[in-house]
């Protein structure tokens, strides 16, 4: 059978993913994460009496802490499975990616296991995050002068 004909045959029997449902779940859970983040910023800046820029760093630390903690306790992957991009895209996803890779390779040594594999998933986030931040900054500099 030719590859194209086989592809049609396969598509006929492959179930459609419920994209609209997945998008809605990710949108709502992602939105709730944003709401939680904003709430934390307000709380920190109000109670600790610090500017919101500093409070947002505190917020990030808090979310990363709970992301890694929940991953280590073994149930964050189930949440991710449900919320999908709603939890993967926020900073919690980054923490989750680092922590899960570290856990996976912890038996293979500090350097050869955890050190080498920690950024297995998160590495590309850092690379492309930095590159795109640089490019956007450059565009902003050219268009608006900084």
């Amino acid at each position, binding site marked *: *059978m030719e*590859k194209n004909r*086989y*592809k049609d*045959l*396969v598509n*006929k*029997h*492959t*179930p459609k*993913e419920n994209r609209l449902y*997945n998008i809605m779940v990710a949108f709502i859970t992602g939105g709730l994460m944003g709401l939680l983040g904003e709430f934390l910023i307000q709380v920190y800046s109000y109670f600790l009496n610090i500017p919101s820029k500093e409070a947002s760093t505190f917020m990030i630390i808090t979310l990363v802490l709970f992301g890694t903690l929940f*991953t*280590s306790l*073994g149930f*964050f*992957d*189930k949440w*991710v*499975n449900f919320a*999908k991009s709603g939890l993967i895209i926020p900073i919690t996803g980054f923490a*989750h*990616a680092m*922590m*899960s*890779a570290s*856990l*996976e390779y912890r*038996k293979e040594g500090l350097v050869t296991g955890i050190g080498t594999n920690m950024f*297995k*998933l998160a590495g590309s986030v850092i690379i492309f995050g930095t590159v795109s931040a640089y490019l956007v900054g450059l565009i902003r500099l050219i268009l608006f002068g900084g």
Partner: protein
Amino acid sequence: MTFKYNNVYINETSTVVGPYEKKGPLNNYFDKSYDDLYFGTKTWEQAEMKLIEESVNILLKKLKKNRFDIDLHISGDLLNQIVASNYAAARLGIPFLGVYSACASSVEGLILGANMIEADQIKNCICSASSHNNAAEKQFRNPVEYGGPKPKTATFTTTGGASAYLSSNKKGIKIESSTIGTVQDLGITDAFHMGAIMAPAAGDTIYQHLNDLKREIDYYDLILTGDLGVYGKKILVDYMQTEYGIELKNYDDTATIIYDLDEQPVYAGGSGCACAPLVTYGYIFRKMHKNEYRRILLVATGALLSTTMVNQKLSIPSIAHAISLEVIE
């Protein structure tokens, strides 16, 4: 390539499984099961090694034999350098052949062993296969705790080890014939759709087998593929009809038997080297002994997946080997 055998029998089998299989519908058919995924070892790779070692030891105990009575041990698994098999073999100390054809390894082992027994080169052999859910996830996909959303077509690697003892003693189930398959590649690149990758290999091997032996499909009471999953099964039925004009009637797939697909979170069903032999050795053999099936064709299918080659944008090839099993007259 098809072989016929006059004098090869599967005398005895053994199965060891993990917690997901224990919770599945076939629990009563396994020899031993565990509630966790480590089995007292420190890592998943070592746990898989233990699955093979333990299944061989249970088999030897059932046979009342020791390792010096066994001429050859053939084993395969999914891990890089088939470490589970190699390390288990190091502990078992039986002359050893390691095999790899992904999830078709179990039947590849049976074919090799059957041929050597038929040729009188060896008196007996043990053929094993194993897979471990977390070890496979770690190697082929993302870290286990990462989870990561999967499509409905994804399959769930079974955790288990299965061994069979082959000899020319007329006891158990007869190995009647076998067919070595050719590697197929119909351009599927989706590593989460193993059924689509492997269905052409299964189809080709079944067709070649029937053609070589001049048989009709209804010669067999059951055609059993392992393991295409819910959607791969539908694809194979359609593929056999359109490509070869063969209607698959008495057909089932081990991926859809080993788990409760409605209750367990296994997507399209089971997969892994152990899936086909776990279902066949326990459940199907029991049915054969009760004469519910007299002749079955077990077609183990393997997706020859390599993450390196997938990243290099090549499609995923697959292979299937078939073995014809009969109740002794």
